[in-house]
């Protein structure tokens, strides 16, 4: 157990070290700033479409660090050393998913307030967005670690990683943005269900991918 805590703390330190903490935040705010320029400063239009933009930005923010989630650990031999110690690949994957969920999820939730202000979202929608993101963050982290593990052997893996994850993330985009629709009842439960599914499958799929890296 201490080994897993040490691994979690290390991954979190590496995620937040040397200013990397602000990367998803800045990216998220960048999208929120650019969007009104692109569609025009029409507040009702922004209010209607901005929520969906928040979801797209959140997904991309999760994928931003794919390059450094698994590949450096593989190249440095850290994954080998963990395997020699008999720590299951699934466990390593689960710890990495948890660390990534906290590592990008917390800053993302903090950045949600200024982002929603820029996109003219009212209080109720901000709460809905925050609830949806909290539900989705574990699944987004699981997808990011999975695609990082699948592409750790490839050059320019992060571009392919994004393509891999996109179809799997679509249900969460639909249900997450659907929560903002006043008529869309039940979207919250469907979002929770699809997030749960991905979060449960994630460690096993990513663990298998980590094992494959050794062959």
């Amino acid at each position, binding site marked *: 157990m201490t080994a897993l805590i040490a691994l979690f703390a290390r991954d979190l330190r590496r995620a937040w070290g040397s200013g990397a903490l602000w990367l998803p935040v800045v990216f998220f705010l960048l999208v929120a700033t650019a969007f009104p320029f692109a569609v025009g400063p029409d507040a009702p239009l922004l209010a209607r479409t901005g929520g969906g933009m928040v979801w797209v930005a959140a997904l991309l923010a999760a994928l931003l660090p794919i390059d450094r989630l698994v590949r450096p650990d593989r190249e*440095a031999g850290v994954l080998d*050393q963990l395997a*020699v110690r008999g720590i299951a690949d699934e466990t390593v994957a689960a710890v990495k998913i948890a660390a990534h969920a906290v590592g990008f999820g917390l800053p993302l939730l903090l950045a949600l307030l200024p982002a929603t202000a820029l996109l003219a979202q009212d209080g109720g929608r901000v709460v809905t967005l925050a609830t949806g993101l909290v539900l989705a963050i574990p699944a987004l982290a699981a997808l990011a670690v999975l695609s990082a593990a699948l592409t750790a052997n490839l050059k320019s893996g992060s571009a392919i990683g994004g393509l891999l994850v996109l179809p799997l993330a679509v249900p969460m985009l639909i249900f997450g943005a659907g929560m903002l629709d006043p008529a869309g009842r039940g979207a919250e439960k469907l979002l929770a269900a699809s997030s749960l599914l991905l979060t449960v499958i994630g460690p096993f799929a990513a663990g298998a991918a980590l094992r494959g890296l050794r062959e």
Partner: protein
Amino acid sequence: MSELLRLDGIACIRGDRLLFENLSLSLSRGDAIWLRGPNGAGKSSLIRLAAGLLRPAAGTVVRRERCAFIDEASALDPELPLRRALDFWSRVDTIDGPVTERAMDAMALAPLADVPVAMLSTGQRKRAAMARVIASSAPIWLLDEPANGMDIAAQSRLVAAIAAHRGNGGAILLASHFALGLDNLAEFEMGGAA
């Protein structure tokens, strides 16, 4: 007869090439086996098989004790000072601070404790990785070219560490191109039908 590691009828296929087959060896307390052979004979693959990092195409691997493993990768976070990078593995192995300190002393790393791993030379990084092996207190050491990049002084420290480990009932499987001046080595010749 306290056997720590046993390989039985092992075959190893890398890519679509058969590296070796029907290979058996046994490692008991105090033993040291030196794997020798030309490049590509499968020394590193055999070490990785013993460590459980590769699955044999045939045969069985039995490990009765914990292993410590070293290869060309140091597995130390480059941005951290050496001491903190080693401390991560001490926490993973639930090892006390003094044990890590003694291991660092054994490889003469105390003066480098505050130097970031990224600043270390190849040989210094190898010494650091060896300190991780020593600190792990695992009975089985699987050493893949541990002396690469080490200077003469570091090599003699490595030899001393290996001797001390064997004296404490540990065992060593060593892949290397030269004998390092170790006494009482069992040689294990690996083919090279490549």
